[in-house]
């Protein structure tokens, strides 16, 4: 008996110490919106679904997703994204959209942008040009779709290994395939390793693919808030270009809204120090008051927070008193309150990998490129990557190629890189043009915007660009 016990305990650690090597055809690292959508797209593809596919994630994603799907939280998460019609079409095509909680998303037909210095405004409208959705909603839908596909193909399930960090990646000397070691000591040898593992992608580092770019020296402050109920307004996305960075307010259902406010580090410190009520006041001020008034408020908030509230209220009251029913439409509604603990911040940077593919490696989404959130393109670029990568893998398999070779993956890179590079560049230029208070540039941009705002065909073209209508038609 004693011997048996001894054997039992001594054998077990020996197994986990050496770690078994599992074989897989495709291993996806990262179960964010990109990783999970990619997984469901691969399992949904009749050409790819017989491949042995695994998904590795460091957080406990399966629990989180089950919880979210079974009983979504009362308030919206602060991690929201704006998705384009093209992205929605693709999610519909792969059967993921059926699982989206549609009561928690908001379509909007209008985007109104206005200049924080000159007030020059530009309005865009198109039916459902954008849809605001929580990251969790997207992830949970993709996860549910994977579960459904797993049920349909019980002999070939997608395996999700969550709560399991990638600790090491090496190359198998015999086959040249990457071997991924997990925190659980398990090793997985894969014929294709796909990094959906974010801006600091360990997969990209392993592949030694350089990534170029720069930090914007801005923080993106996010939060979930609620508008004052002042009668019906069509859901509208607002963006005010302040010289410190744009403040975007995007609509959620029931008068809720999600904000992304990019601010320099000093201002981020000041804003983070505010109480929830003060933060709401600051946002209302930032969407209405002039830059000079804002400077005063920032200083007050830093040096005499007790006076800030009074001053901000007084200035806003002055401003609101002057508003007519008509001019009120030029500004977003006033924000009433904030969902507790919904404030967060993250650094903004531009980065673009020199290559998205290597032998047995592919990078998708933020692992390949990160951008300023001002145009709401980041996640959509990743979704377009997925669409292209799945197509590339399908073509490679139909032609009998070894889908993990750089040769087979190259078309993915060559078709996505130029498009992504152009988007990154345009967003970067917008950031720079609006990131200045240099008078001639302010005049020029305001003149340009005033002219453009009166040329509907050019605006339609721009709307087509941000909502990827062309892509859809192709």
């Amino acid at each position: 008996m004693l011997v048996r016990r001894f054997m039992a305990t001594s054998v077990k650690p020996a197994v986990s110490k050496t770690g078994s090597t599992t074989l897989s055809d495709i291993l996806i690292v990262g179960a964010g919106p990109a990783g999970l959508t990619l997984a469901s797209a691969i399992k949904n593809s009749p050409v790819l679904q017989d491949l042995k596919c695994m998904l590795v994630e460091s957080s406990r994603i399966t629990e989180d997703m089950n919880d979210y799907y079974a009983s979504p939280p009362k308030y919206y998460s602060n991690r929201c994204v704006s998705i384009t019609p093209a992205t929605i079409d693709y999610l519909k095509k792969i059967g993921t959209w059926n699982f989206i909680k549609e009561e928690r998303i908001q379509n909007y037909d209008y985007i109104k942008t206005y200049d924080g210095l000159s007030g020059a405004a530009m309005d865009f409208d198109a039916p459902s040009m954008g849809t605001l959705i929580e990251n969790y909603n997207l992830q949970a839908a993709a996860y549910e779709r994977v579960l459904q596909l797993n049920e349909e193909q019980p002999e070939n399930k997608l395996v999700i290994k969550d709560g399991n960090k990638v600790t090491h990646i090496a190359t198998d000397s015999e086959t040249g395939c990457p071997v991924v070691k997990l925190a659980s000591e398990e090793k997985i040898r894969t014929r294709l390793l796909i990094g959906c593992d974010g801006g600091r992608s360990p997969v990209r580092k392993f592949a030694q693919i350089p990534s170029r770019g720069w930090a914007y020296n801005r923080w993106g402050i996010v939060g979930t808030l609620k508008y004052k109920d002042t009668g019906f307004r069509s859901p509208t996305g607002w963006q005010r270009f302040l010289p410190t960075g744009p403040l975007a307010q995007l609509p959620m259902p029931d008068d809720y809204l999600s904000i992304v406010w990019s601010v320099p580090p000093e201002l981020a410190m000041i804003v983070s120090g505010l109480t929830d009520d003060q933060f709401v006041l600051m946002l209302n001020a930032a969407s209405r008051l002039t830059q000079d008034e804002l400077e005063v408020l920032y200083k007050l908030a830093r040096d005499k927070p007790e006076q800030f509230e009074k001053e901000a209220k007084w200035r806003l009251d002055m401003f609101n008193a002057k508003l007519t029913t008509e001019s009120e439409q030029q500004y977003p509604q006033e924000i009433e309150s904030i969902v507790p603990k919904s404030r967060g911040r993250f650094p903004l940077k531009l980065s673009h990998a020199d290559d998205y593919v290597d032998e047995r490696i592919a990078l998708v989404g933020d692992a390949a490129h990160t951008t300023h959130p001002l145009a709401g393109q980041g996640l959509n670029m990743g979704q377009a990557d997925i669409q292209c990568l799945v197509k590339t893998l399908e073509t490679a398999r139909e032609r009998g190629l070894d889908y993990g070779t750089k040769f087979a993956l190259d078309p993915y890179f060559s078709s996505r890189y130029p498009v992504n590079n152009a988007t990154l560049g345009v967003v970067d230029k917008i950031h720079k043009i609006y990131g200045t208070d240099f008078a001639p540039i302010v005049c020029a941009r305001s003149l340009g915007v005033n002219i453009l705002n009166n040329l509907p065909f050019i605006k339609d073209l721009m709307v087509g660009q941000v909502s990827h209508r062309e892509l859809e038609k192709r």
Partner: protein
Amino acid sequence: MLSTKLQVISKRALHLSSKVLAAKPKDPTAINPSEASHFSDLASSWWDETGSQRILHKMNLLRMDFINKTIKTSIPLNKDITDPEKMVFIPGWSFNNLLPDDVSSAIQKEIDDSVRLNSQKLQLKCLDVGCGGGILSECLARLPMVSSVKGIDMTKNVIKVAKKHMKLDPSLENKLEYKMMSLEHIPKTEMFDVVTMMELLEHVDYPATVLKQALSHVAPGGYLFLSTINRDLISWFTTIFMGEHILNIVPVGTHTYSKYIKQSEIKGFMDQLKDKFKVVDVKGCAYFPAVGWFFTGVQNMGNYMMAIRRIK
């Protein structure tokens, strides 16, 4: 110089049209020794997709498209289905442009699914003649509609490379085998559903004999796919002058102009066997740097691919 070339050409045309073999060599299907040593030198770089063989790897994509399309479009989609609910209806007109997106994509999906399922049932037995390092053999072996591939080549070193490379993909192990042998040594009775001879006829001395031998191994209903180069000035300019000497895309000595065969010559040759074989498709193709390979729509110029089907 020109007259000797013309002589060679006419001699070669004779080979094809008359099928008469003057001074029959020991093994007429064998590769020319100088060609053999040329390919032996290339062995080490065969699978370097970024190296001198990149153009061949790129061309292979077009070959696979050609083979896939030829076989898959010949599969009857409604065969054996009597239940009208399950029948796949393919409009005779271009439904993509006329029907609403949802409807046309649903039709396309049904067609694709049906083709996929029916093609997987084919389980084709393939022979790749002049397989080289196995670029085409491996791709054929990975197709779900293929059950086995035999790759044969006369150059020892490239067979070695091919055998080594196939080990990188475990899925090939039971489907693919390589043999160093000539076509003549394949048992007379051994039949294949697909025989491929890609970029081969321009490297052998007796193309008519090789072609006949290859055809004798095509099972009824099976296909022979070949690709080679039209003998015309355009081909000389693109494949030899530009390809080998100016742009160095392929190593010097890869091609011999006099060995090129016009597609019309092969068609003429196939005419004599028309009760047994039918040329089902010929496609001209061309390479343009920075664009890659593409089908040209002109059969008589430059490179071409041909599909021949045994009708009975």
